[in-house]
């Protein structure tokens, strides 16, 4: 069962209610069908004009059509129409009048077996209503969409999800050294970690089999050119190693030498692959475009993120360079096994590998605030509502994702 909340934030609040008419003309049905199958914009427009003419007969003439130009009419000759005409308008989705009677339906789901009982939206209806409460400049109470500016679907009818906070944390573990999550933009289901803007571009290349094959082939063969790392990259690499606690935080000379030698090789290989150049050349802002407080080159950031997002590359490298494996065997200790044991089974290459970081409203009581965080790997809290609720939970805008049917999402 879902809770439905009607949003009042629209531009049609002055319209008369119950103004809808019954249409008995079978021609309407036929034209509506034709509209769906229109082969071109011009054909669509012509059918829309016919349909509108038909539906306008007997109109209650409540208001002027907002966009007469869409029907080849001038502003002066705009027709008086009613809500029924708007309901059957071919351009309904583009018209701002279509925001009338917006409502959101809230479904309860859970993301893990341990915290598996979904919260019932009905039992928490008053708490949920608080999420949509607004106070305007005159101090009047309004109903608003809390996701305005965070979701392209804000102020439109859609489904939202009520999810226990604990189940989100359990389902989406992250690298502990990802301290600043404000700027993360998504979550990689396969390597179980947050992703940043530059990662999306890297992942897109890694998901291309031919690029990955060429990367591995080049890593396997070819001689290393020593001194390929700039001084800045060397310093940056040490910073990253410290932040990530590589080699358990022990940065002895041998480890550093081996680490530098490996990255020299990887960067050399990357520079020979033209696909990576646009990413490397894009200015990157620390903690915004990637998770590091580093000002190293784009090549270094790509190399590090490839190993973190696709640890099989590191495994492959070490298999073919056993001399480095001696020192790098404790490199990235938790990257090979996905954190939390909740790995997803992505059987086919075309399956979705990453999801966006969903905007959420946090619902919790004042006593529970110390148990929760405002930034999570899979969602960001944009608004907090202090309400009486048995356990903290999140009202999530799924950004047009069907969370119930997302591949690899539930109990993978």
């Amino acid at each position, binding site marked *: 069962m879902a809770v439905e909340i009607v949003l009042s934030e629209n531009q049609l609040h002055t319209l008369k209610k119950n103004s809808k008419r019954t249409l008995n003309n079978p021609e309407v049905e036929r034209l509506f069908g034709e509209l769906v199958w229109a082969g*071109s*914009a*011009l054909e669509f427009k012509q059918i829309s004009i016919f349909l509108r003419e038909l539906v306008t007969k007997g109109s209650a003439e409540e208001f002027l059509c907002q966009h007469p*130009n*869409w029907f080849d009419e001038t502003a002066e000759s705009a027709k008086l129409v009613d809500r029924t005409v708007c309901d059957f308008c071919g351009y309904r989705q583009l018209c701002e009048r279509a925001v009338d009677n917006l409502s959101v339906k809230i479904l309860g789901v859970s993301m893990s077996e341990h915290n598996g009982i979904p919260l019932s939206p009905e039992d928490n209806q008053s708490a949920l209503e608080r999420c949509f*409460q*607004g*106070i*305007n*400049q005159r101090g009047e109470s*309004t109903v*608003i969409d*809390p*996701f*305005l*500016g*965070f*979701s*392209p679907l*804000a102020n439109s009818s859609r489904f939202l999800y009520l999810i226990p906070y604990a189940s989100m944390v359990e389902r989406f573990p992250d690298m502990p050294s990802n*301290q*600043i999550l*404000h*700027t993360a*933009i*998504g979550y990689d289901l396969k390597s179980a970690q947050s992703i940043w*803007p530059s990662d*999306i*571009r890297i992942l897109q290349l890694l998901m291309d089999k031919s690029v990955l094959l060429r990367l591995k082939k080049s890593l396997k063969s070819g001689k290393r050119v020593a001194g390929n790392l700039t001084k800045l990259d060397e310093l940056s690499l040490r*910073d990253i190693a410290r*932040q990530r606690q590589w080699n358990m935080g022990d940065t002895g000379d041998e480890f550093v030498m081996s680490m530098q030698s490996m990255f020299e090789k990887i960067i050399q290989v990357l520079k020979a692959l033209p696909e990576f150049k646009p990413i490397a050349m894009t200015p990157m802002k620390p903690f*915004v*475009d990637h998770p590091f*407080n580093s000002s190293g080159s784009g090549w270094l950031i790509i190399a590090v993120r490839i190993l973190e997002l696709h640890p099989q590359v590191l495994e492959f490298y070490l298999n073919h360079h056993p001399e480095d494996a001696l020192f790098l065997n404790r490199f990235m200790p938790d990257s090979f096994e996905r954190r939390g044991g909740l790995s997803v089974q992505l059987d086919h290459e075309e399956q979705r590998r990453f999801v*966006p970081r969903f*905007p959420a409203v*946090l619902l919790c009581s*004042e006593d529970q*605030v*110390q148990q*929760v*965080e*405002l*930034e999570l790997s899979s969602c*960001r*809290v*944009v*608004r*907090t509502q*202090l309400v009486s609720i048995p356990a903290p939970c999140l009202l999530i*805008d799924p*950004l047009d994702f069907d969370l119930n049917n997302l591949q690899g999402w539930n109990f993978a």
Partner: protein
Amino acid sequence: MLERLKQSILRCYASSPEGRAPRVQILDKDCTDLEPPRAGETLIALLPLSAATSAPFHSRRTQYTDPEANEFSQRIDDLIRDLQSWLVSEKYIEDDNFWSYDVRNKIGQIRSSTGDAGVLRPGNGLLSVSSELIASKGHQESLYFCFGGMDLLLAERLIPHGNAINGLDDFVAIHRSLDAILEAIVGLSLTVRQRRVSSMTFLYVHSLFEKEKAPQSFIDHVARHLVHEVIAETKVQSQCLVFGQMRPGSEATYMSPNVETFALKRCTPPFELILSSTADLELDDVLNFSKRLHLPPLSLQFEMHVSEFEDTSLNQMTPLFAFSSPIWSGFWSTSREINGEQVII
């Protein structure tokens, strides 16, 4: 404290030679809608710190309900529609749905990264201008609309030798069917060029001592810091501000865990710590400050700027602090997102 800070901020602007009085509004923590700044206006909204738990909601909501921005969007939408009709009538495109989505997305990217003005700036991927020198006349310039790998000529103009032309002025459409489109482009360009920049700052404030105890000079000093270093910085921003007493030698936290300490989780570096004096203070008092105020655990690589207010009259009293920090508000510079969608430029 909010009222005292408001008065200090207004005094600071009044004493500044070029300072135009801002609109300073004290808001209730539940307030969701406020009147956006008018053209050229500086708006400072003062809220209690507990409201910072919803800081991204406040800043984005204000931006997205700004009628000026919405009007601009409406005009851009009208322009896209006119262009679309023209492209269909000239048979450049058949299916306009994808085209429309593609162009809107591109405009969204440009607006988020370079602002409204960027949309009509030639060379941005949507419009381009080519210039050819004709020795006997001057510069012959052509305005193109670019999409899908095509450059469609919209208008031309001649800039005689020695003349200067602003923006897109004096372009003449190459065909009458393009008159309305060109007029809309030039009109929008003019609007953007003439628009005065407004700014909006959300200040989330908390005081750990009774407001009477705070010396006016210290509050004025903090207000000056805000006006000169924080408020003028960007178009929209959120900042938290906490006043308190340092309690030298003590290891106790400044406040027990509550909604305000929860709100402090929104703080992001660089942190700023302003001290009324350093008398009786040890280094540890400053080093442990973050922990005692329940700030997010941060490594040493992050900066904490510490400064002292030079007022000898305050040396006799327990040192006071004013802590300030930016709060993530989710705009392009720190999010690479538009309307919740990640965008690759």
